[in-house]
């Protein structure tokens, strides 16, 4: 599926999803929001796609909302109603990624800012190119965090560090991002895609159902108390125990060989 502003390529079970407005540093206009949501919907249904990678074309991952598209409103002096934009565009994207029953990796190839950073944070794992930079950006234009940023920053960084990032909005380079736990890996720029592919393809060969259930368990565990988490784990394990991949995994263990997971 190739849309106007998002390119996709399915390779070795990995759906590479590339934000494709390089001349605008992959800023989100209406079209790109719609296109990405469409790709995510399809990815959910496509059984061949067992891992999704989101990345950006050119030198940016994404710099967030394309302020140029709203220029007329700003120039008119009328207030900008951003709540609607969030409800329609960004919130559904964040929800889709987090609720998708397969792993989603953000391959942060370059600069990422605002809702672009929100998008990266919504993904399950983040790999950064060493030239990637991370900008909170909202505070610089007099806004509060959105696209899930308040939720993920506090959970990933802890409250104190999240406050620092949110209130001061200093740029974060890839080394710092790694130290903060904001990204899982940093790779050299010239080997970036190759390294991300290794991780993504490994996940694509994994027990997809169990990966999805793990994702659900972890996403839930950060918002509930321990007893509820235990209860939810019990349900999930009942579900996982009935998958073909579980049977294969145990069989492989007894036969002392690598498991061949089908994703079922």
């Amino acid at each position: 599926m190739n849309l106007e502003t998002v390119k996709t390529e399915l390779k070795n079970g990995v759906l590479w999803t590339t934000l494709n407005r390089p001349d605008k540093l992959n800023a989100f206009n209406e079209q790109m929001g719609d296109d990405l949501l469409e790709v995510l919907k399809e990815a959910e249904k496509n059984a061949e796609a067992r891992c999704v990678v989101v990345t950006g074309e050119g030198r940016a991952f994404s710099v967030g909302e394309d302020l140029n598209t709203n220029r007329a409103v700003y120039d008119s002096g009328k207030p900008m109603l951003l709540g609607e934009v969030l409800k329609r565009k960004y919130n559904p994207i964040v929800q889709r990624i987090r609720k998708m029953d397969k792993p989603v990796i953000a391959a942060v190839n370059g600069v990422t800012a605002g809702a672009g950073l929100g998008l990266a944070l919504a993904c399950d794992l983040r790999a950064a190119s060493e030239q990637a930079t991370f900008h909170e950006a909202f505070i610089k234009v007099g806004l509060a965090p959105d696209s899930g940023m308040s939720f993920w920053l506090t959970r990933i960084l802890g409250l104190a560090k999240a406050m620092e990032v949110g209130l001061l909005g200093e740029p974060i380079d890839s080394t710092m991002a790694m130290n903060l736990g904001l990204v899982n890996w940093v790779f050299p720029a010239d080997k970036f895609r190759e390294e991300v592919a290794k991780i993504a393809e490994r996940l694509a060969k994994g027990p997809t159902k169990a990966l999805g259930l793990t994702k659900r368990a972890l996403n839930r565990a950060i918002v509930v108390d321990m007893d509820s988490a235990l209860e939810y784990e019990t349900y999930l394990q009942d579900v996982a125990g009935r998958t073909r991949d579980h049977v294969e995994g145990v069989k492989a263990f007894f036969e002392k060989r690598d498991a061949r997971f089908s994703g079922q």
Partner: protein
Amino acid sequence: MEYQVLTVSREGPLGLITINRPAAMNALNTRMVTELISALDGFEKDDSVRCVVISGSEKAFSAGADIKEMAEMTAVRMAMTGHFFPLWDKVGRFPKPIVGALSGFVLGGGLELAMSCDVLIASETTQLGQPEIDIGIMPGGGGTQRLTRAVGKYKAMEMILTGRRIGAEEAKALGLVSRVVPKEAYLSEAKKVASEIASKSPVAVRQAKMAVNKAFEMGLADGLDFERELFYLLFASEDKDEGMKAFMEKRKPEFSGK
């Protein structure tokens, strides 16, 4: 009865009703109402059925009343045929426990049907709402009464006046569903709960259900009197003897329903 929009089956002591009109998101129509009444009638008369499970599909328990059918209804015809009212009466007064297994859309008449059940197990994908206001009408199958009793005035007003849907977790927090489970497990969990209820004394279960439902109809003093009467009555049952004896002998009771 030849079921067209339901699948009706048995699993041990459980009577299972699955709403099966996938092309219309399990929307309720006259045919479905007739079939639901017939299925419930059958389960009510059959002593070997101890608990009923009503479910739809993962995508939709029921997205509400069939709007195409409703659009053609006149007030007079609705009054004469009773529209869905015979169903609401049937399910509202059904003496055996009903577990609702919810997933996906539970809207309008679908939510009203759900709220007529006694225990609700919801998949995490469940979305509940009374969106009738969006098409210029209001809930007519008990929604304004049962939702208000379940979640209180202000939440009920918000849902009924704006038509906004709520998710499974919010519904659980409001006390509108009993339990939220992963989408793969909602039906098995509902059956598990139903089986647990089915293993209890059917007499005690029936009286207890009646007593809880009376809490919404009576003042506290009358309700307590009512409860007491039912409680005394259970002391005349064989199941009470068996239950207490089994407890003292540290074994599982075997209830006969007498």
